[in-house]
């Protein structure tokens, strides 16, 4: 429905992206998923950069396409139909620059935003997840612990602060030219002590640690990020001291709908492959689509994907029009990630045999959908966000 709010030009652009995906991403999706350890594939990134798609919502004054949230979400869905990992590389860029766009100084914008809009692709990363290393059994599973940061201040002088700390599961880390993260002003790391900062890779003391093997979105390359005596110029701090938590939550709300759009793309890809299989695969003497148990299931899947897409688009429209978007954003995440999990699982059943072999698309869709459900807060996390406003 929201497609009708787009100009003809934007719709044509969207169709061009769809073609691009069919041509340059779909054929390599399985391979990308498999090459976990080998870092980001710059072949595909070069193509995205060429079309200025690495962070398409960056304003035109900084070299970006200046696309609305809505158009960006549609583009992410198209990319995710080809490969959810590639779409997640883009959404990670968007999430990482989001604090700069919403709360950064103009110097910060001028320094960092153009990096993502050149034809020579660079990436950005968002370092968010806390992880206490060296624990056999990890701390506080399942919910994002966003009320403190284990990046702490060691020293402060007039122009610099010196930081030390650790973040985990940093997507895009291996190829990022800068990072957005939060630090705690006090060792206790309370919510009211947090501040956001941007961290250029070339400052000494930054180590990109181990590559983490993940269930899905494997081509995103999640790594550890280790800071040892990083002497950060104060001009790289974003927002006021203590504003970190609010800046972070606002940007989560603004970006979670993108994760939703990627989930919709994965669900759509799984649905399409299942629909095709059901019309070709013979079951009990006829194409399995002619079994109502299967065709009705496909009808349900299509219905739910549409509902999920509408929820994502509504949240984006709210953001674009500066309406209160926080609830709509959470709802779009809840619905799209649960739909993606359901649809990808049913698609495997409908595709049958081959779907269960390693490297088949259906199997990858299921893993990606499951992983997307945990990225940017699980369904239950977002239900609690909504409930907190009752």
């Amino acid at each position: 429905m929201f497609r009708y709010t787009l100009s003809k030009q934007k719709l044509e652009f969207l169709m061009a992206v769809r073609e691009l995906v069919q041509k340059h991403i779909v054929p390599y999706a399985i391979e990308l998923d498999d090459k976990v350890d080998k870092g980001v594939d710059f072949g595909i990134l070069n193509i995205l950069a060429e079309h200025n798609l690495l962070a398409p919502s960056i304003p035109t004054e900084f070299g970006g396409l200046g696309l609305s949230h809505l158009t960006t979400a549609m583009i992410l869905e198209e990319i995710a139909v080809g490969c959810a990992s590639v779409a997640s590389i883009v959404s990670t860029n968007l999430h990482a620059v989001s604090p700069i766009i919403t709360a950064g100084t103009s110097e910060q914008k001028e320094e960092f935003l153009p990096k993502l809009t050149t034809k020579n692709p660079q990436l950005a990363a968002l370092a968010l997840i806390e992880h206490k290393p060296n624990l056999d059994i990890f701390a506080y599973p399942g919910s994002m612990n966003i009320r403190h940061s284990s990046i702490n201040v060691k020293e402060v002088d007039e122009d610099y602060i010196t930081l030390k700390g650790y973040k985990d599961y940093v997507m895009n880390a291996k190829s990022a030219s800068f990072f957005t993260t939060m630090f705690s002003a006090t060792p206790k790391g309370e919510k009211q002590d947090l501040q956001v900062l941007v961290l250029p890779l070339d400052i000494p003391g930054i180590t990109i640690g181990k590559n983490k093997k993940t269930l899905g979105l494997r081509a995103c390359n999640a790594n550890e990020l280790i800071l040892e005596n990083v002497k950060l110029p104060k001009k790289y701090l974003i927002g006021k001291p203590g504003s970190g938590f609010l800046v972070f939550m606002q940007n989560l709300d603004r970006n979670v709908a993108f994760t939703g759009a990627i989930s919709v793309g994965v669900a759509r890809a799984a649905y399409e492959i299942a629909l095709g299989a059901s019309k070709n695969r013979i079951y009990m003497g006829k194409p399995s689509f002619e079994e109502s148990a299967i065709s009705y299931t496909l009808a349900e899947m299509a219905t739910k994907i549409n509902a999920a897409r509408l929820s994502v688009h509504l949240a984006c429209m709210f953001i674009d029009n500066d309406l209160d978007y926080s609830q709509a954003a959470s709802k779009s995440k809840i619905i799209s990630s649960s739909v993606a999990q359901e649809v990808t699982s049913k698609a495997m059943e409908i595709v049958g045999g081959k779907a269960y072999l390693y490297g088949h698309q259906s199997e990858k869709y299921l893993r990606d959908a499951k992983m997307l459900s945990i990225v940017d807060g699980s369904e239950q996390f977002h239900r609690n966000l909504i409930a907190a406003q009752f």
Partner: protein
Amino acid sequence: METFAWTKEEIDLIYEVRDLAKNKIAERAIYLDSTGDERQDWVIPELLARRNLLAPDIPQEYGGRELSMRMHASLIEELAVGCAGAAAIVVANSYAVTPILIVGNKELKEKYLPYMTTKNPNLACMAINETRSNYNIERLERGNEDLTRIATYAVKEDNQVIINGSKDYIVNGAAAKFILILVRSSYSKHKSRLQFYLLPNPSPGITVSEVLRKAGMRSCHTAKLNFHDVSIPESHIVGEGGGYLLLMQNFDRNRTLLGAIGVGVAKAAYDLALDIAKANGIFNRSNSYSYYVSSTLADLSTQIDAARLVVMRAAFYIDIDANYARVSNMAKLYATQVAQHVTSTAVDLVGRLGFLVGHPVEKYLRDAQMLSIIAGSDYLHRHVLSAQL
């Protein structure tokens, strides 16, 4: 480029209907729910007629409000928050009026549409399902490939058409000012033999053979009608020859409104559960029950919003005359599921009070169940939808 913003007038009308539903309709509906649907009650039709809401999509030239489908669906949702049965009255009218609007001749339009826009309430109905032990337009004989096994038939005699048969599950049937009936005409063949006629009511030969007591939606009256040698002028034909396509088009358009009823009844149950939770300070406590209630409510609200979007999309497609068959089907299916899930969960949340007959939360559950059967089962909808994949 569309923006989806309501005008000031549209917003005012939505609030007016919300107010009407909450303050007037809901009360009557609870009364009717406890006393049963054996009689046609006129309180709700009067409330609606006074505001010209009985068929608000009728063009202004016939006295109507000429609302868009989006507005129509929004008002149906608001009415359904008050009572799903009240909304079903309006939707039943819409099923009868839509074919006339699409292909009715000028005479019929001028004579019958204004009935639906007067301050005195008049109702209309559509008679489709044959009276049969195995009900419905779904096929009866094994292997017979004809989708619509309609047995009621029409014969031409001079300039009159004579109709004989019996129809079932007719909302508004007993008191309708006119009946849009689907028959098999003896003078044409196969699917195109299906033909709509408009029957003025009362007419000689039309009798109520049974009043149906429904498990929910008791604010609307539902009947079986018998047609014995009912004679009408030939001019009362609606859409000559295209009965099957007209039927499908009528179903496709009005399914969206059924979806809107689903959203409304879900919202009613959700609102009530939320109010009760708030009034009991659930959200200020820190115990397992509070967390269960609050996150469950968050989930219900998520689903209701998605259902509303799906319904609004279908309405929008109808308004711009895009291909709406598929999306209206989805709207009906999705909203029905959400309505049934939400009302059932609301009973769980509200708990023991749900034991009470007459307490709204339990009524919402029964009302939502009815959505599975009004105008075709969910299986039928899935079947139609899967043919469009």
